[in-house]
């Protein structure tokens, strides 16, 4: 049994210690907003925040997380979907298939928390998630818009 804190709630989960956080979130806790894309930290679809830092949950073993750390998933980013990144995403109609967007939004929210007024290069350096639908330019514009919305 492991104990982890997700979106403000402590969960006791029955998972082997090597189990990636991604699969604990999806299969044990039932939070499926965090997506599986590659399993090797290459695509970013599984991005969550660990104490505010963006992490690729597909390669984070549950044994390396302690109960004192706060995990935030897309479901917990804001209580009502009104985080500035979510508002900007809606305003610019960013998603296409949407599958990568939880990860993109979590990466963008972490970027802005760290750097409220990022330059183009800051955005490119911070946003390494893959989007096969190719929404990159709208993502870039939406991050700037989110920075304005503050």
């Amino acid at each position, binding site marked *: 049994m492991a104990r982890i804190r997700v979106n403000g709630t402590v969960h006791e989960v029955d998972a082997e210690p090597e189990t990636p956080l991604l*699969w604990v979130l999806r299969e044990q806790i039932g939070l499926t907003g965090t997506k599986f*894309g590659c399993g090797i930290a290459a695509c970013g679809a599984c991005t969550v925040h660990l104490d505010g830092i963006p992490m690729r949950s597909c390669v984070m073993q549950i044994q390396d997380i302690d109960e004192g750390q706060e995990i935030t998933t897309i479901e917990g980013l804001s209580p009502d979907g009104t985080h500035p990144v979510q508002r900007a995403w809606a305003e610019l109609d960013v998603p*296409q*298939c949407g*599958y990568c967007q939880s990860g993109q939004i979590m990466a963008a929210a972490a970027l802005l928390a760290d750097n409220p007024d990022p330059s183009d290069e800051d955005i490119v350096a911070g946003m390494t998630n893959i989007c*096969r*639908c190719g*929404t990159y330019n709208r993502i870039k514009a939406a991050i700037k818009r989110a920075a304005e919305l503050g």
Partner: protein
Amino acid sequence: MAGQISISRRGFLASTMAGGLCLGLRIPVPGAAMAQEGAPTEVNAWVVIHPDDTVVIRVARVEMGQGTLTGLAQLVAEELDADWEKVRTEYPTPGESVARNRVWGPFGTYGSQGIRASQQYMREGGATARAMLLRAAADRWGVEPETLTVSRGVISGPDGQTLRYGELAADAAAVEVPSEVTLKDPSQWTIAGQPVKRIDTAPKLDGSQIYSLDHTMPGMLNAAIRQTPVPGGKVAGFDANAVRDMPGVREVVAVGEDAVAVVADTWWRAKTALEALPIEWNEGENADLSMDQIHAMLDEGLEAEEAFIGTSRGDFAAARAEAAQVVEAVYHFPYQHHATMEPMNATALWTPERCEVWTATQDAEAALAATATAADLPIEQCEVYRFTLGGGFGRRASSHDYVHQAVAIAKAMPGTPVKLIWSREEDMLHGCYHPITKAKMVGTLDADGNLTGMHMRISGQSIFAGLMPEALEEGLDPLAFQGLNAESDEGEFGYSVPNLLIDHAMRNPPVRPGFWRGVNNNQNAFYLESFMDELAHAAGRDPLEFRRSLLADHPRHRAVLDAVAEAIGWDSAAPEGVFRGICQHMGYGSYVAAAAEVSVDDQGQLTIHRIVAATDPGQVINPQQIEAQIEGSFAYGLSAALLSEITVSDGRIDQANFDTYPVVTMREMPEVESIVMPSGGFWGGVGEPTIFVAGPAVMNAIFAATGKRVRTLPLASTDLRTG
């Protein structure tokens, strides 16, 4: 639950399909007009109206990011004069479709036809529902329908009385279906044609959108699968006992002859056990397959005496004999993987009486057929519930292998729902790859630098031969000539070359091909538009002027080319160190062109400064979504042109994940300026066409910058360093 629909059967007796107009045929049932309190009413197959005025539009084609759901809803809402704010959508199931005599028409969502192939009957569905609502209001007020007006789902009568659609739906469903409706002229549109926001965005922002991979149900188990590493190989044996006691493991199942699955309580446990499972393979006759062998096959096809002639006009041999200059070049387009962000997956529940599947598919009817076959049950005892796709790009139309497998596994565990998820590695190693081809291009110029003849010999793989041999015509594949046809509304060769020969030597290596966004247009446009550039330079002519001089008979081809030339400033000098390339193509009924500005530094590092892309799709339903598709098609097309490639060694695919199959990320993504220039009178596709011009525009600009002609993709295999 996603994919499920509620159909009011009140008064519904039968359905019919006539002349492309698909409408529920109803016989009014006396006394049934009082619909159940609060229940929605099916006015016709496309339009369901709730008492609170919510309008649900049924869409058979599927959403995979390309905006079809929103576009089709706009068209139906337009004809219906619905309140756009109150419009929702839902997917009918293929089982319902079978039961109702295919009332929704085809479900297939590929070939950039989601909107263009269904717009007519869906608009008629909206217009018919509107007429029925008007009739119902007129009857209530004892007036003629012609005296009524409609705005945003509210009907007004001659004396100022009003009724909402939600109040009228039950009556409307009972009136006679009009035999004829008049559709609006696009100039009257207020919902269609507008850059409205997508109808499906909100749940994609907070994690609440449920994809097939997220589906869950009580008692569900999870399966991980390993398939033969070599095409055509078979399982020789496996030792289930080695993993039976591992945490969560419930079953180890042979899936067909070429795969093994482990079923466990969670997918992670299934995958962990699968990795520990000893499996022996009988690799079969392709165990030695190498790129050298594949290239040798294609090279032989380039020179073969016999080939399938797609287009022949004039006398190329004579043109060659008389030419002042002959230009020759061999080009190559490699295998590509779809790499949808959501790996293949499906959930199946099998009992001896019934089989149900929950999955992501570009053709729910094909998924239903796959379900019935794998379940060994009549199609009427099967059903497929579908989800918004986490990417399709043709993969989820090419093969429903994942559905077959999920059903096969579920069949081994009757009554237990099982979700099969392919790991990314299984997904990449068992794709339906963009086919591999080469082309030998020969052009002839006269002494004045005019193009007198061209021979384009394509050698390589046929998708039809690999996936659906029944689609071949006497063993030949007409799809090989996408965008190169002499006369075609779908993809016409635009250049007036007096002596033209285009032929195809089919050579099929044993690697499964598939329909990959853009399909054969990708290589055909790369070959032709790069070579046109070579010819222009050989003739000492400007690449734009050279093309324009040959497009006089194809004004739409030329118009998009002119549009990108003007926007990029072709007539004025590019900034210092920046070079331009240009190209055009036609496919899926649309005319497209692109111009690129690039620079290449001493280290051979490419920078794409600017892309301008134009499309003439005839009609525009949602201009901002067309722009999104243009940008997306460049991300996808440039991934293939610049970075990605699937290769084979010892019968095995070499690339298994994004670490070895790099794709365009934000860092490589150029700015894309879109020009959407509908000329009206036809309906072209949008999801694919601009992908054709992504690669050649950039490669032509690279030639202008470096003098190096990139004839083999991806670019990563070419050293662009000067000297």
